[in-house]
């Protein structure tokens, strides 16, 4: 942010530093351990009075000098060049804080070089004692170089108290200094043995070769115990959250951890193999392989250490993007483009969005994500997400992926970065958001003659906005099933609610007569629900036609097998069902038609890749469904993808309980509502209803537009009653938290309430029981003073709008007002009056039944008492 960015693209993601660093680190460790090897081998030659060993030691010194001084020394400078180019901010912090440590290291580097040159060029010329002293000086200086640099390297991973004190010594002697020093010292000696094999296996004289190969094997084998013990110590010295991050959470660490674990015994075995007498034709290639394995071993360790710092370059101080932790809030507030020095686009316009996205990508993402390169290629990682999905992912990536930093910028900037990745890098062309809806034919309003008809039949769906999932061969969250309710009223001066001596027959519209041909729910029902469900039959046994079950005052047909796909194809989320009341002799008393809403416009694909399953407007495609499971597996450690691959689809409620008690789930897990809202609230961070309609079928430009009642006409939205997604999620999580679920506490810690000051102010609620209610705004049924209610919930299921009755206790609120989200007068997007059939049938206008002084729908006398609820005898207010 403070510096320009080298736009490396394919070489980004740290590839340059990885290439140079691993190479240099391997040789520089050889430069330390090899120094010990040189001087001890010289001692050995003198001790054993063996000039051939001395000759070998001299030749090995030349090999050592050429490797360490040229390739090792220059790549060491190269690392410095590289880190200053790739992360100048962090380099500057290291240089300025530890300048005198670097300077001391330079002193030892100088001693090393001079000592090594003298050591090599005076071999056989200088007297033994002094020559050995020079050798020991070389080794001592080399080890001191390691000692010095070790403190700085480990500071980057575990800065310890330096974060608070900024004291040189606190940072230098940080928590992992000592274990790392032991670890690296052991590693140096092992590497010296590996390079020793390279020269000793090339000795022509067999007996000498055998002797010295065995001697080299000791360098490999003796320090291994120290190495493993110090590796354990090193791990234990890491802060607990860092251990969890590296060894449990970060997916890309697994390869390197596994590599390190497996290579340890392989190296030991290789050392033992070389120690036995083998012909040089075998030992030479083995020596080369061992050297390469050692390189891989070193690489694994360095990748673990480097990767473990994420999302920081200097842990807890500076993010990989070079943004200081303490500056993050400011950058998020003011925007990256305003805060960054090296950007051309200080604002985002339509014309500049792509270039601004590129500039921000370079600052925020390129340090870890290459573009079409070998390291963390962004195109591979992001190709499964839509532009919108990327935008949302970036909003919460730090919470669910703790190795990722928070997005350092505004929501607008996040969108621009997502646009750059999705449009420019991945070539995705976002289709128009607006879905064109083809109106259905004019609705047939059943006949009703208020002079002749004795009965009024009111019917409604228990939910005005009902979703189902149609990815049954992958996973099932919401099975098909629309429950209809009805009330039959015998008109009169004192109308009666009739439930006995009559029957109510329902018949789903002919165009929806074969749902099993549209979705694979029935093929998978046995796997999902452990029972075979008959084709075109609902979970409770209801078919596409039948008799409604009589209750105390209402009839119901439960879980009708309705899907939003007509037989002729396409998507129509408002199937109709005709209901006929018949007398005891089978005579028709009254007929009506009701909409049974059911939607598959479930926006998983907005983030989870893949197309809509049907008509480019609805349904969860196989690709989307599989992506959902893959993400679940990655983040929650499940193996759901494998389960599906084995032919057993997943029922979400097997783990995440539903509120109706049909599926108790796993007690350790959050209930379905809390889990899904609590998790996704990390990503869908917009404060308005767009967060809700990312998943629910109520987007203004979507294919369902299920929020279609009067409150929609009055321009309320989801957040008016439910709060924004973050608040909404907190209410659900808090209920789980109070039950003792720790997972809820974790998710709560990631969210910020907005409607109230603190999480403590959030009132917990059980899903589908504690819900917002009409009377929270319509106090005493009066005109509301406010159109926002949040944090007030119904006490019990009986209080829910769909279950509550008028003051007579006979009529359900929904019977006259229609279902929640679709209260009369409704404007259905597919046909204006599709939901208003009954008010139009009985009173010729789309207002709630009996409103606007339409008491005559049921009453055959003039009414002057507000029998059903206060404030009802008046002209309808919102005509």
């Amino acid at each position: 942010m403070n510096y320009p960015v080298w736009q490396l693209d394919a070489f980004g993601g740290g590839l340059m530093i990885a290439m140079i660093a691993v190479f240099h680190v391997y040789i520089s460790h050889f430069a330390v351990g090899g120094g010990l090897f040189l001087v001890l081998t010289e001692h050995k030659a003198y001790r054993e009075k063996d000039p051939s060993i001395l000759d070998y030691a001299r030749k090995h010194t030349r090999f050592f000098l050429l490797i360490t001084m040229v390739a090792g020394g220059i790549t060491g400078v190269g690392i410095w060049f590289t880190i200053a180019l790739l992360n100048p901010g962090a380099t500057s912090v290291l240089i300025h804080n530890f300048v005198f440590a670097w300077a001391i290291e330079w002193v030892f580097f100088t001693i090393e070089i001079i000592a090594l040159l003298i050591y090599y060029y005076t071999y056989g010329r200088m007297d033994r004692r002094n020559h050995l002293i020079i050798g020991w000086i070389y080794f001592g200086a080399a080890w001191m170089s390691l000692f010095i640099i070790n403190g700085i390297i480990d500071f980057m991973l575990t800065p310890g108290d330096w974060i608070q004190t900024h004291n040189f010594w606190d940072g230098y002697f940080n928590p992992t200094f000592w274990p790392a020093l032991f670890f690296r010292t052991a590693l140096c000696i092992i590497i010296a043995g590996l390079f020793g094999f390279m020269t000793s296996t090339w000795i022509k004289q067999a007996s000498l070769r055998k002797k010295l190969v065995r001697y080299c094997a000791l360098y490999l084998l003796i320090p291994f115990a120290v190495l493993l013990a110090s590796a354990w110590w090193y791990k234990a010295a890491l802060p607990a959250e860092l251990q969890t991050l590296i060894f449990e959470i970060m997916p890309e660490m697994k390869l390197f951890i596994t590599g390190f674990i497996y290579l340890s015994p392989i190296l030991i075995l290789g050392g033992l193999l070389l120690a036995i007498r083998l012909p040089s034709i075998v030992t030479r290639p083995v020596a080369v392989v061992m050297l390469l394995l050692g390189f891989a071993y070193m690489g694994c360790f360095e990748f673990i250490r480097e990767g473990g710092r994420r999302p920081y370059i200097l842990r807890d101080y500076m993010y990989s993007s070079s943004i200081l932790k303490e500056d993050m809030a400011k950058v998020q507030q003011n925007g990256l483009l305003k805060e960054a020095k090296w950007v051309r686009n200080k604002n985002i316009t339509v014309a500049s969005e792509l270039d601004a996205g590129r500039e921000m990508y370079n600052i925020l993402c390129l340090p870890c994500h290459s573009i079409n390169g070998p390291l963390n290629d962004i195109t591979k990682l992001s190709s499964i997400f839509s532009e919108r999905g990327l935008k949302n992912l970036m909003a919460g990536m730090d919470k669910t992926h703790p190795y990722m930093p928070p997005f350092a910028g505004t929501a607008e900037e996040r969108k621009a970065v997502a646009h750059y990745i999705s449009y420019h890098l991945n070539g995705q062309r976002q289709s128009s958001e607006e879905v064109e809806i083809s109106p259905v034919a004019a609705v047939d309003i059943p006949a009703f003659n208020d002079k002749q008809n004795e009965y009024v039949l009111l019917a409604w769906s228990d939910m005005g906005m009902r979703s189902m999932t149609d990815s049954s061969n992958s996973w099932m969250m919401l099975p098909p099933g629309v429950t209809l309710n009805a009330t039959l009223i015998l008109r009169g001066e004192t109308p009666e609610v009739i439930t006995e001596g009559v029957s109510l027959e329902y018949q789903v519209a002919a165009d929806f007569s074969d749902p099993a041909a549209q979705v694979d729910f029935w093929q998978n029902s046995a796997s999902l629900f452990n029972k075979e469900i008959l084709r075109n039959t609902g979970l409770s046994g209801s078919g596409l036609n039948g008799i409604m079950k009589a209750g105390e005052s209402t009839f119901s047909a439960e879980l009708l097998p309705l899907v939003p796909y007509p037989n002729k194809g396409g998507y129509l989320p408002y199937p109709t069902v005709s209901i006929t009341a018949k007398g005891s002799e089978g005579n028709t008393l009254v007929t009506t038609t009701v909409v049974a809403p059911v939607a598959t416009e479930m926006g998983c694909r907005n983030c989870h890749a893949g197309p809509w399953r049907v008509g480019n407007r609805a349904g969860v495609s196989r690709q989307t469904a599989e992506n959902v499971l893959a993400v679940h597996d990655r983040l929650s450690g499940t193996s759901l993808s494998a389960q599906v691959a084995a032919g057993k689809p997943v029922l979400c409620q097997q783990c995440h309980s539903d509120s109706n008690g049909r599926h108790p789930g796993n007690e350790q897990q959050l209930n379905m509502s809390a889990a899904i809202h609590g998790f996704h609230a990390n990503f869908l961070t917009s404060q308005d209803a767009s967060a809700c309609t990312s998943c629910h079928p109520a987007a203004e430009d979507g294919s369902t537009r299920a929020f279609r009642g009067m409150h929609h006409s009055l321009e309320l939205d989801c957040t008016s009653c439910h709060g924004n997604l973050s608040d909404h999620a907190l209410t659900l999580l808090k209920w789980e938290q109070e039950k003792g679920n720790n997972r809820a506490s974790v998710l709560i810690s990631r969210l910020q309430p907005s409607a109230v000051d603190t999480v403590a102010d959030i009132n917990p609620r059980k899903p589908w029981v504690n819900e917002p209610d009409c009377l929270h705004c319509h106090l005493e049924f009066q005109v509301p003073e406010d159109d926002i209610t949040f944090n007030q919930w119904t006490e019990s299921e009986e209080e829910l709008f769909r279950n509550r009755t008028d003051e007579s206790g006979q009529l359900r609120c929904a019977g006259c007002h229609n279902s929640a989200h679709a209260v009369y007068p409704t404007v259905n997007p597919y046909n204006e009056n599709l939901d208003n059939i009954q008010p139009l049938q009985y009173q010729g206008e789309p207002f709630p039944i009996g409103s606007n002084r339409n008491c005559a729908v049921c009453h055959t006398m003039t009414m002057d008492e507000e029998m059903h609820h206060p404030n009802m005898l008046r002209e309808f207010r919102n005509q």
Partner: protein
Amino acid sequence: MDPAALIPTPDAIPVHWGWFQLLLLLTFYLHILFMNVMLGTIIIAFVRHFQRPAETCPLTQEISNKLPFSIALAVNFGVAPLLFVQVLYGHFIYASSILMAALWLSIVGILIAAYYTAYIYRYQYEKMVDGRIVATGLISCLLLIIGFFFSNNFTLMLHPETWHSYFDHPAAMLLNFSDPTLIPRYLHFVFASLAVGGLAIALFFNHRQKKGDPKAGEWVRYGCNWFGYATFANFAIGFWFFGTLPKGLINPSSLVGGLFSIFLIIGVISALLAAIYGLRYRVMPALYLLLGSIFSMILVREFLRVAYLKPWFSLADLKLATAYSPLILFLLFFACGLVLIGWMLKITYQTYRNREVQS
């Protein structure tokens, strides 16, 4: 675009900037000496091979022997000033390095190639009669390229007003040709290297001559001639360089301008005298004058940097986060290191002297 808006915010320094300035000057002085010897001698060797391809002479033999040492020492003594310049001017040099990042990082590979070629030249000298011209030519070219990249970077860092080119050149290969001082500045260093390389040759064979080598005198004169003529050539380049400096950059009435002028004059006069002594084959006086001249010119270079950056930055602007104990520790290690190096050089010298006595 306001250039000041592009200049990164520097980090705080642990001790007064004067310490770093002092250490920068001292270590850069050592670096430039070794660098000049390294570059100058290899170019001279190349010219010699070019003139007499089949000749095996003590001059090129000794250069091939010593070249790995001079590279090692030039690199080693380059590390310290690079460290200290980052402390004082990191926010300029990091930015300019990134603008030419691809070229800047290529130095690592180029240097390794030059270094290994130097070892090949050393160990295969006798065998590779025809290859000597190729090896020395290649090493010279590689080192000259590195030198040019350094000149490019260290002038680019002085010109924040040109940094906006970054936005139009994302390939990170920005060259500072818009700065008219770049070429004369670069050539000034190259010719200084030829001069110092020549004097180093003269010094080496002067030592041989004192030890009784009858043929060494020829090479003393050879080296001195290189030194003298390259120095005179460098006067011309120096004046060219001076003439390309922006008008008004140096105000002799200011402190920086005054010091710049004084040390420039000292540097020029001492170089002139050194060249005269050199052409008279008076090696030691030429050496002392040259060392003084180079030190003066290094000071001039620093004052020039201060003058260039004056509109943007002053060293006094750097914030201080005081921590003196690491400095004390460094000075302690530095002193001990010098003692240790001195002892090692002493016993090495004794070893060679004893062998000469024995032989």
